């Protein structure tokens, strides 16, 4: 029984290299400069409300880094906004980021806690009153008035352990932090020549 438990514990694999993450944590606590990252995106307006955004390089660990390939994302607005709907709405892309970030966190925390995951499904819903962006009512904010995320998780764990995974994932999530706390956003412009 003891042996089986130990074996099971060692074979838990959610595909997250926790040892590497812990190693990075240790190394970066000694080299805080290398921990300073810059995430980048470049976008080109295509037509109407459509834009194409490319993700390629970023800065971290003291140098320039690249993804294995460039990723392209199209954003647009749906037809009910009289748009062509060539891509997800930008606010939906925010949900993409939140879902990806929290799910990655769930997997990493589960790995660290020796919990085998079988499936992790997140359903997200953000409320928004578009009177804000349309300038109808100054009292209404432009952005979300709230975000709901529900996780359905199949794992070798109790409901409390699953709740703790999701809570810890939020605690360590960058996108959760970005959405829940104010961030200084500095936008500039220049004339293209």
């Amino acid at each position, binding site marked *: 029984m003891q042996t089986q438990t130990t074996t099971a514990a060692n074979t838990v694999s959610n595909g997250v290299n926790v040892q590497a993450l812990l190693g990075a944590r240790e190394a970066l606590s000694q080299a*805080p400069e290398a921990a300073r990252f810059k995430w980048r995106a470049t976008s080109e307006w295509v037509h109407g409300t459509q834009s194409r955004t490319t993700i390629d390089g970023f800065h971290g660990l003291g140098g320039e880094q690249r993804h294995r390939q460039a990723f392209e994302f199209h954003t647009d607005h749906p037809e009910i906004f009289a748009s062509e709907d060539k891509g997800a709405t930008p606010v939906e892309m925010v949900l993409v980021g939140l879902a990806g970030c929290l799910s990655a966190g769930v997997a990493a925390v589960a790995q660290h806690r020796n919990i085998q995951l079988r499936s992790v499904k997140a359903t997200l819903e953000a409320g928004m009153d578009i009177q804000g962006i349309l300038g109808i009512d100054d009292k209404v904010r432009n952005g979300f008035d709230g975000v709901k995320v529900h996780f359905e998780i199949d794992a070798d764990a109790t409901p*409390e352990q699953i*709740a703790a995974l999701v*809570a*810890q994932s939020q*605690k360590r999530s960058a996108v959760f932090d970005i*959405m*829940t*706390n*104010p961030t200084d956003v500095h936008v500039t412009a220049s004339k293209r020549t």
Partner: protein
Amino acid sequence: MNPVVDVVVIGGGHCGLAMSRALTQRSIDHVVIERGEVGQAWRAERWDSLRLLTPNWMTQLPGQGYTGPDPGGYMGAGEVAAFLADYARRISAPVVTGTTVLRVSALASGYLVHTDRGDWRCRALVLASGAYRKPVVPALLAQALPPGITQLTSQAYKRPGQLDDGGVLVVGASATGLQLAQEIHHSGRPVTLAVGEHVRMPRLYRGRDVQWWMLASGLLDQRIEQVDDAARVRRLPSPQLVGTRERSTLDLNLLQQQGVQVVGRLAGVRDGRALFSGSLRNVCALADLKMNRLLDGFDAWAQREGLAASVLGPNRLERPGATVVAASPVLSLALEPQIRTVLWATGLRPDHSWLALPVFDRHGGLLHEGGVVQGAPGVVALGLPFMRRRKSSFIHGAGDDAHELAAHLAEHLDRSAGLRRHATPAAAARPFIGPSTAFTSESLAS
């Protein structure tokens, strides 16, 4: 010529006194330097209504337990000061009062302790000036607040009457933040409480003080080596507890019922508005989960120990319910004119600004291993959070740490003195002061 002593103990609080007794038992020549009177912080730097978070029967120092009529009660600050003064007399601690240490520097061998009343030279040093001396205030937020708002730290706070009439924003959800929020709310000033990560505990669990469970189950004796993430546990805020005659639980649910507005962590100040984090729901969920794991751990311990019948017995107290969070938590608040005072209950840290030794990390934290300060031979600290054990910052936790670190200092003194010390039996000739009863943590549990 400056007076020379083997060990200078800086601080005449419970830690300095526990160390003084341990040094005396080893006949090690020492002096305890105290800026004010024994237990100064308890006399001058606490709010009027403060009571210990631990019951009286736990308020023990080596050789001295609580002998008063109310072992289940909680001492006020004045009673703690009196308890310490009594202890200092009983152990004949060599305390030099009214003497402030201005600078400690290294000599070719040993240390120079420069005070406002002369200097001392010593071969070893004990940093016992307190773990909770200097308020930690988030500078950027403090600077961003409108100038018309009075800012106050929990260290400067005494009583509600010192505050302007009008709203108060209490920042921080430790024991301090919750206690002050409640007291100020009861004074008729509307209170908003900004809540980040916190530690929730019921005062009583199954009819016993939660601190009894912490101690009896061995949690308070847990050593720092047994903990996964030492840095994290050392940063934990004090649990949301209060010591009252009714032994009542103080939590966010009670405060909200009483009318305190609970909001998320203070995350920014913009255009005269305080902005609160949208993480309130999650920090409450985290605290609820951790509290229930703690209580589950108590139950499992009681089962293992065969205490189930007597302790678990009838479920005398139900588990506290989940923390209630408003359907739409307030995310921003116009500061003026409603809010007149911002009260920072954002924690206290040690003040080692007078320590001119290369013993700090890049954040100004003391580099130490279980209280043995790194990079300065013969220097030890006492009383820091989870320094050697979970109880290291508790009054009753000082004894075991002082006992072990006194042994470390004795070795250091022997080593640095070489054979000289063994050649002169001065130590053996000194009178032995104080009771010799061994202090064990087991004795507390009974």
